[in-house]
């Protein structure tokens, strides 16, 4: 029974990476479709729409950060896995949930916002600064989730 602790911990890392990664994949995908439409009309806007398309990609990176910190915390990266009690394992799993869930939802929403912002670039290319701001608003919540996940994971004693 006591060996299950590390399983929960690893599940936490997996949840952080796959949920937020999935959110980013959805978001970047939606934004990419809009970006392709704009570039097919006017290839000179490539650089601008590419930046906007990349914006929802950060959630996946945040998930990666939490996954990586968790893995190194439980010693899976160094080779010798640490003794993790069931309670600690579940703690780590809980700590990973914010970035996983918020990453999934915010990645998706940010993708939609980025697609709409790409529409701004299509019509008013000089309004890039403002267009970039709308997706960045969504990202705030992913950043907050990242912070809590990070602080929680690093606060758990093993």
């Amino acid at each position, binding site marked *: 029974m006591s060996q299950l602790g590390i399983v929960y911990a690893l599940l936490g890392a997996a949840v952080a990476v796959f949920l937020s990664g999935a959110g980013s994949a959805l978001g970047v995908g939606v934004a990419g479709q809009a970006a392709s439409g704009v570039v097919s009309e006017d290839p000179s806007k490539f650089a601008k729409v590419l*930046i906007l398309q*990349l*914006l929802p*990609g*950060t959630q996946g*990176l*945040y998930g*990666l*950060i939490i996954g*990586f*910190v968790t893995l190194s915390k439980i010693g899976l*990266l160094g080779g010798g896995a640490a003794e993790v009690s069931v309670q600690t394992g579940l703690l780590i799993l809980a700590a990973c949930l914010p970035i996983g869930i918020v990453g999934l939802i915010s990645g998706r929403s940010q993708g939609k916002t980025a697609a709409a912002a790409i529409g701004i670039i299509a019509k008013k290319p000089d*309004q*890039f*600064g*403002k267009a*970039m*701001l709308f997706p*960045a*608003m969504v*990202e*705030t919540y992913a*950043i*907050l989730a*990242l*912070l809590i996940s*990070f*602080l929680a994971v*690093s606060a758990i004693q093993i």
Partner: protein
Amino acid sequence: MAVLQMQRMSICALKKDRKAILEKLQSMGVMEINHVLEEDEDFRRMDTANARLSFDKAAASADQALDILQQYAPVKQSLLSSLAGKDLIDKERFQTVIENKDELLKTAKRIQMLDKEKAELRANILKIENSIESLMPWQKLDVPMNFLGTAHMAMIPGTMPGMLTLENIYSMLAQQSPDLEVDVHIISAEQDTTYLTVFCLKKDAAQAEETLRSIGFAKPSLIIDQVPSKAKEEMEAEISGIQERIAAIEKEVIDSAVNREGLKLLADYYRVRAEKYDVLGQLPQSERTFLISGYVPTKEVSKVQKALTDKYDCVVDVEELKEDEEAPVLLKNNKFASSAEGILEAFGLPGKGELDPTAIMSVFYVFLFGLMLSDAAYGAIVSIVCGILILKFPRMGKGMKTSIQLFFWCGISTLFWGIMFGGYFGDVINVVSKTFFGHEVGIPAVWFVPLDEPMKLLIYSMLFGVIHLFTGLGIKGYMCLKDKKYMDFFCDVVLWYMLLVGLLIMLIPSDIFASIAQTSIVFPPAVNALGKGLAIVGAIGILLMSGRANKNFGLRIALGAYDLYNVSGWLSDVLSYSRLLALGLATGVIASVVNQMGSMGGKSVFGAIVFIFAFIVGHTFNIAINLLGAYVHTNRLQYVEFFGKFYEGGGRAFNPFKENTKYADIKEETNL
């Protein structure tokens, strides 16, 4: 740090100097034409639309010729060439080129014509090739296809569907009309078509055709009056003739590539003239005189006055702008601050009565950007790359140049923060020394390592946030004072400062703060009391004064309470600065993921190769993605949190009448 003061300048001069004065103004490029005068019986506007259109057309024609030249004789352009900016051309050189402008325009037309001819010839070749294709099955026929036969015999060429043998055809014919006598020759047969000729007596020809049609026989789509094989040869000869012509055209176009520079100048020349005529069309003109009116930055006024009154008979009248007139905005900042002008422009230029926040913003921008990226090596790379670009392309376009300058400064700030936090490609020194040399060494952080003490950096992030926001509120106060709105200054700025400072003083000794900061700070009781007092006075003041524009007392209090609710806005604004920590961590952790992956090959030659590969790919990716992140989120902190406190924007950019060229700048007196 300023929005340049504008004045209205009106020039009245004689028509004979019109061209010279317009050209002078255009080359100085310091005046935005703006006419307030209506047309009346003395002053009329000239219709220049036609002239302008013809100049635009000429410029477009030169542009098109240049595009064609680029297709035929491409000039290699490196990826960075877009940074190079416009060439600088001597005025004499420009004049000599423009003296031949008719010749050059002819060349441009000729190039376009040749290109068109080539396209037509290409289409011709395709047509002929199609004919050859349809003649191919008839190659074995050694009489012309429209051969009518001899005195008594008729020849009927045609096709039948399907791959048929003589036997098939004869049996089909026998079924249809057993007594018909014909001689069938199969010329060639393909998968789904058989090509054949049928011979019969002339008197039977009509019957034979009728019968043949009933079994699916059809006349060939293309009938030529030549032996097919010969016709094919002739067509091939024609194609090679056309190809020679195309080669000749290509050569001629490539030879005219020497005119490339001339064409560029020509395009610019016509573009400038079109603009001049556009302005000319706006000028009110009487029989002998004309008027120009527009905005000129105050510091340029005397220069323009001198340039005009010395040479020409004219009256130059300068007046201050009227109260309700919205002047175009031109910013003037020192070298460091001006690099952030692009960031401000992206949000919006200062509106009427607002001051230019670029100088203050640029300091915060660079500071916060470095904190978000916070890796010494990344910062050094960014600065070095930007520095090289600036040195290598001194004539870069203005917008591009300011952004690259800004990133140069941001790189230096990143370098500074990287040294403070001990980040050099993440933890590459530790990983390399441990993996390849056996014992771990590293450069210790000058300040502290955020990964080990995230709470500490979180507190500092919010502290920087509070400073940033208070600066914003301070600017609002300054603007109120400048406009002599002392009441607004006290109610909207001073009271808020009191409330917020009071709340901060109350918060710092509390348990929540102590658990976050992991140290408890104890103020002397007097300070605590002061904090409470400030907060209470501030809160009551805001409650009473925010709705002061309203006469109704109940509504006034309600508005005040609503404004007090903005405390939560301040809280979320300050919390927003926690992204400084999060993005800094993101850079560091992803960098160590890269290093970790690289070191998995272990201590061997193979391991080293894996490491170098992972290092280059991984860190390039990390720099790119985190540069983007830092850029976006620094902008956000400026636009939403900082500007939210005092700045609205909405100004209109100064758009002077100048030589808007595309390819080259003509050397003359420097502009602004």
